[in-house]
């Protein structure tokens, strides 16, 4: 096992890793920018090293200073947390060359899974369902019609050179397809100079369902109960829960096996997440794989009883995965709300400043992961997520009621937060019924006014 781990991160995730290390009796080194001097992760770690000024590219992304900090403190491993350098192949490589264990996958695996089109090809090869579509561009309308019949309507015609919704046509039936291909081609030519278009199945209001997987160096890989992260705003997850109200035990097994297949395809040896889109027919499609610990990992910890960060550290140290797929049980329902220092009434404008009154929720089934404390001054340089409020209940209804009551107890004054926004989500009738998809926030919360 490692003697000393340097945590190349800040805020709640740095604390999360320090907590795991302390419980495992591993020494810790915090690194921090000048803006984070005296923040909780520096106080709770055994040692701390200042690695640069406030802006992250000069501190938390400053690879030479982070590696030097590991060297001068004698750390034998680095935990990258999420964000910052967590999926940086160069950083993983430098760690390796300096004989410091990077707690995460190898550079090669990050590379393979980081590139979406490479990942898609690898998954297709491994037999993991991907969104069906044309292999390359389509030129003949007959080919398009044939393919569309095969993958079923609605389909979407996309310009190869497009992106972010530009040069895109959703087609509901055969009649519209010919026209759509032609329009899209001419639009694409006008906009991007290339008339190449391709065809893909259109997934309407999908659910975002992801599987936590764990792998070791012997090739053992298991999946844990899924997380539903459909509640998003502009592709930013806001609320996560486990298990998903849209997944029954049969579908769970099917998707879980697909997730394991995906991980086996790249010989995955640590914790990771396979993200799927799930449509209304119960069909699911590989979206991407995240090769790090995720923000929403606590919901899985609560329902599975497994400490994922400890597991991640053990696997990185070469330990064998001592969990049996058949013994993984779901103990209740967990929900996480990301509390951001943002003003929900001003288009989620990030806030910084000093926290005046501050009372944390507590009692049964409530977990808070946060780096803030009374009097803390939120610096304007970093991510606006300041706390994660996670609850577990014996069933989904109890979990929601518990989250409502915990949100009501959570006092953060001096800055605006997304607490009132989450209160609205929890009170929503569709949310209570589990009728959520990636359009939920737009359709249910914002439309209410």
């Amino acid at each position, binding site marked *: 096992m490692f003697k000393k781990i340097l945590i190349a991160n800040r805020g709640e995730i740095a604390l999360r890793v320090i907590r795991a290390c302390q419980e495992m009796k591993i020494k810790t080194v915090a690194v921090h920018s000048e803006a984070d001097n005296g923040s909780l992760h520096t106080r709770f770690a055994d040692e701390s090293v*200042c690695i640069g000024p406030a802006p992250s590219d000069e*501190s938390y992304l400053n690879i030479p200073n982070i590696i*030097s900090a590991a060297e*001068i403190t004698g750390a034998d491993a680095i935990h990258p947390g999420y964000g910052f350098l967590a999926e940086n192949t160069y950083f993983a490589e430098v760690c390796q060359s300096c004989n410091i264990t990077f707690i995460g996958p190898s550079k090669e695996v990050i590379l393979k899974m980081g590139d979406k089109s490479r990942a898609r090809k690898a998954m297709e090869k491994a037999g993991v369902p991907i969104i069906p579509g044309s292999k390359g561009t389509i030129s003949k309308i007959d080919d398009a019609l044939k393919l569309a019949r095969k993958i079923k309507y609605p389909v979407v015609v996309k310009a190869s050179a497009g992106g972010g919704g530009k040069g895109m046509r959703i087609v509901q039936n055969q009649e519209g397809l010919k026209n759509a291909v032609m329009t899209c081609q001419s639009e694409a030519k006008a906009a991007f100079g290339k008339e190449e278009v391709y065809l893909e199945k259109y997934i309407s209001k999908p659910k975002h369902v992801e599987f936590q997987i764990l792998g070791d160096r012997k090739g053992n890989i298991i999946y844990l109960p899924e997380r539903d992260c459909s509640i998003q705003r502009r592709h930013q997850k806001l609320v996560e829960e486990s298990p998903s109200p849209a997944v029954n035990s049969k579908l769970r097994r099917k998707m879980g096996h697909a997730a394991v297949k995906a991980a086996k395809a790249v010989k995955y040896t640590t914790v990771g997440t396979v993200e799927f889109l799930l449509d209304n027919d119960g069909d699911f499609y590989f979206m991407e794989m995240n090769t790090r610990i995720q923000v929403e990992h606590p919901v899985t910890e609560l329902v599975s009883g497994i400490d994922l960060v400890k597991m991640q550290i053990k696997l990185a140290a070469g330990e064998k995965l001592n969990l049996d797929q058949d013994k993984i049980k779901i103990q209740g329902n967990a929900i996480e709300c990301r509390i951001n220092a943002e003003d929900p009434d001003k288009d989620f404008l990030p806030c910084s400043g000093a926290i005046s009154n501050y009372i944390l929720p507590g009692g049964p089934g409530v977990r808070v992961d946060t780096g803030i404390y009374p009097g803390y001054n939120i610096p304007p340089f970093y991510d606006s997520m300041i706390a994660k409020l996670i609850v577990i209940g014996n069933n989904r209804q109890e979990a929601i009621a518990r989250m409502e009551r915990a949100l009501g107890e959570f006092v953060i004054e001096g800055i605006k937060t997304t607490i009132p926004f989450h209160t609205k989500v929890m009170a929503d009738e569709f949310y209570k019924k589990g009728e959520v998809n990636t359009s939920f926030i737009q359709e249910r919360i914002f439309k209410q006014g």
Partner: protein
Amino acid sequence: MRKKKSKNSSNKKAKELVQIREFVNLIKDADITELIWERDGTKISFKRGAPNLDEQKELAQKEAGAYETLPPGPKTEEESSQQIKEESLSFLEKYTTIKSHMVGTFYNSLSEDQSPLVKVKDIIKPGQKICVIEAMKIMREISADKGGKVVRILVEDGHPVEYGQDMFLIDPYYKKEEASKSLKKKHK
């Protein structure tokens, strides 16, 4: 590879100094007459207000003889932090420091067999090589970003430094006559 010392032994002293300086600035700018700070057994207390004449005289005497009574080299941690606390505040106020802009291991000379680049009482000029910092197995020569008389070297040879850590305590207002005196002595 050159010998390194572990972290944590040397920078406590430097941090303490910075802290005291911060307090001085705080009390200077604010309308505060008394400030007591206590943590982990260390207590720093400042008082202000209509100063007593005797105290003022004492202070002036201390200042005048300040350099002479300063220890030239590094001391044990406890001794020197104690020393810093006892130094008069106005005395500390006029000094400045040269900070590290990287994380690594501090060396006072270009190689193990060479003499230190800078010694206490030396007069240094901006741009002059003052130390070497090793990071990721690369030795980097560090130049002074300000000039003055070296009052104290705050990091020991072979010890680690972090970003922003004070390495040299500098008197930028040293007297010219004294400067030439010290130079003469050096070249004897």
